């Protein structure tokens, strides 16, 4: 009996010890080769690869959002010939699933690799909110590529997000621009909003509501759905009673598609223009909505050639050559820039000893990334501030012209209608 108890105790203790050992932790100050760093040093032996991670939505209805960015990052890597600091890059991509659970799992998997140097991504704020801190706890900075929620780079953000920067705009700009468009261009004085509880949608809607009220407009209904809701008719009937001029719902493909399909059936919605957000710039949206998409508008960062940097047409050409189709979403340029910033950061801090081994200080890399200034990126000028915001915002409105997913092509379907 005693032996049994002892064995049981040993097994439990061993399990806890193993769990504690495998949990990614930031080490204390460390010196390896020529490099001393506050939170740790990664040593890459001569000939071994440098690990760079990535996590985006690569399954489910929002696949185009993530896949497009993974491709952007891969093209950047091709432009560096797959090499950085004299080592081959091993690019490990995980699925963020565009939700918190997915982000957490993907980040934990990436962080469990002790040789991981930096992570590019994610695409969704809901994945970055838990993912960023998990990575930074392991000393790995993240360069997010389309997470726009203001809290991620707010001055009072939690410690875990201090290693998190982004080559995409902040929704403080996007939400305000959206509200200004509704009020100034569409001449709307009443607005209804719908978010889906995700950090991206909720924060964006709050910013837009604030700006709209400031301008003198009135928010007549502020509603919320869950991403899996299918029956939007009661919600829309409720909104219709307030007779808004514009219904703004910057949510994701599945639930947005239901709103688009069902709003035309609701009495009282005839005078309301419905407008979605940038997550809907995807062939998957047309697949989910069908012909009801024709004439539907959504706000999006300007994705036309002249809005991007000079090298953008070249990126599109490489994209088509490599993947056999035109870009399937709007953030591949931001992802290209994200990877470029990461690679330049590594080049800046990597030190190689006489034997050809390379050493990268984790804190030094984080600081180098945050110090990126005036880089002429494909998505525009990249200059990071101390909170991790690196890119500006150019506003545009798009409209779908055809419901067939195979006709999706940024510029024609959807076509830019403003500015």
């Amino acid at each position, binding site marked *: 009996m005693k032996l049994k108890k002892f064995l049981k105790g040993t097994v439990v203790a061993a399990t806890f010890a193993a769990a504690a050992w495998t949990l990614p932790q930031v080490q204390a100050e460390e010196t390896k080769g020529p490099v001393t760093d506050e939170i740790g040093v990664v040593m890459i032996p001569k000939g071994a690869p440098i690990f760079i991670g990535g996590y985006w939505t690569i399954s*489910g209805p929002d696949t185009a959002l993530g896949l497009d960015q993974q491709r952007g990052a891969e093209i950047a890597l091709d432009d560096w010939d797959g090499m950085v600091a004299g080592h081959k890059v091993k690019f490990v991509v995980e699925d963020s699933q565009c939700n918190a659970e997915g982000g957490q799992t993907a980040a934990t998997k990436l962080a469990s690799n002790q040789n991981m140097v930096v992570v590019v991504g994610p695409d969704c704020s809901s994945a970055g909110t838990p993912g960023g801190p998990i990575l930074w706890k392991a000393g790995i900075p993240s360069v997010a590529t389309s997470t726009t929620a203001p809290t991620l780079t707010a001055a009072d953000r939690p410690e875990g997000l201090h290693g998190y920067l982004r080559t995409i705009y902040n929704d403080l700009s996007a939400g305000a621009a959206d509200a200004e468009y509704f009020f100034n261009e569409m001449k709307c004085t009443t607005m209804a909003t719908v978010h889906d509880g995700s950090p991206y949608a909720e924060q964006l809607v709050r910013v837009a509501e604030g700006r709209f009220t400031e301008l003198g407009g009135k928010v007549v209904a502020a*509603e919320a*759905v869950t991403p899996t809701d299918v029956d939007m008719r*009661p919600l829309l009937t*409720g909104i219709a009673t307030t007779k808004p001029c514009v219904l703004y719902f910057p949510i994701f493909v599945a639930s947005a598609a*239901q709103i688009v*399909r069902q709003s035309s059936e609701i*009495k009282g919605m005839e005078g309301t223009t419905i407008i979605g957000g940038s997550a809907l710039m995807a062939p998957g949206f047309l697949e989910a909505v069908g012909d009801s998409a024709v004439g539907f508008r959504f706000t999006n960062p300007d994705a036309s050639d002249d809005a991007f940097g000079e090298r953008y047409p070249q990126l599109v050409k490489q994209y088509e050559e490599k993947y056999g189709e035109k870009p399937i979403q709007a953030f591949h340029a931001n992802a290209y820039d994200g990877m470029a910033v990461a690679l330049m950061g590594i080049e800046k801090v990597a030190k190689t000893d006489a034997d050809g081994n390379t050493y990268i200080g984790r804190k030094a890399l984080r600081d180098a990334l945050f110090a990126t200034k005036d880089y002429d990126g494909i998505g525009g000028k990249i200059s990071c501030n101390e909170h991790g915001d690196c890119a500006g915002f150019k506003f545009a409105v798009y409209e779908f012209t055809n419901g067939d997913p195979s006709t999706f092509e940024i510029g024609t379907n959807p076509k830019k209608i403003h500015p």
Partner: protein
Amino acid sequence: MTAAASSETRNGLDRLKDLKRLSFVDVILWALRIGVLIVVVGGSIGTLIKGRYSMEQWFDFFMFGLTIGGIYALIALGYTMVYGILRLINFAHGDITMTGAFSAYFLARGLDRSGFLDANPVISMILIMGLAMIICSAIALAVERICYRPFRHVATLAPLICAIGASFFLQHSFRGMYGSSIRAYPDPEWMKGQVNFLSFEVPLYQFVVIGISLAAMLFLYLVVQRTKMGTAMRAVSEDRDAASMMGIDVNKVILFTFILGGCMAGIGGVLYCMVYKQIYFYMGFLPGVKAFSAAVLGGIGNIPGAMLGGLFLGVVESIGPALFLDGIGIAAPYQLRDLIAFTMLVMVLIFRPQGILGERLATKRA
């Protein structure tokens, strides 16, 4: 002390004892009942006083609720029949619904593209639903044969776990076969019309969906009540061993039950897709959970109960957020729709643990 006085004292003591017997859980349950009642009554009065919604809009809410409720009811029938016969919760039933609707999608899309769906609505719907019914029944039978039959005489949780496993298996097989994107179900022109009903304009598809669900439920009820096989089903559900001794082929009855459940799921799945226009591999899960709740709400094992439970759940989901929560000033009430539906479920079960129509089951089966 007079006799009357002493009896009064005794009564007083009894009451005190009763009070002492009141456990902590009882207090919480009573508080919950009172709290929910206050929200429901207070909220409803508040909403009606505010007068935000017109009579026409309340009617719309009711019709939205009946539409989705009819679909829940069809799916719930599969849960309740299997429970009645096997005392087994067939958790894979929601996903069986998805398999039929997903397979029928390809036919529906083909018919839509060729223009046949618009030209011949009745034949097309019969073909689409027929295919969904065949696929659902076939998969339901396969699940029964592989996952449930080996455990039929084993009194453990194994069949339940197996059912959950089957549910995941079906979801991910369809994801593997057809991908994880959302596809748009066709939207034929004839479904877009409006009908004037009691001076209200009602979309035609709502009548179609409610009509087909009611017809299917009536058909099922007649099968169970009026046919030989239906009588056998009822006998097996009363007492399987006795029915077997009376010469009823229990295996055959069980297979028949799964086929009937599969057919109802096939119809329910196609109707769900015709209303919500989308299909993806995970779509069976939530309607499945709701339909299971509807079956429990109506009294699991009871066929009219499942129908009533489904309609009740649909209507509460649709009317609840506007009626109960608008009045007490809760912001964005629609995201609490599931909460309302499940709170109502809990309330009904607190007041009537056997479900709305579950009386006949209470003594023998529960």
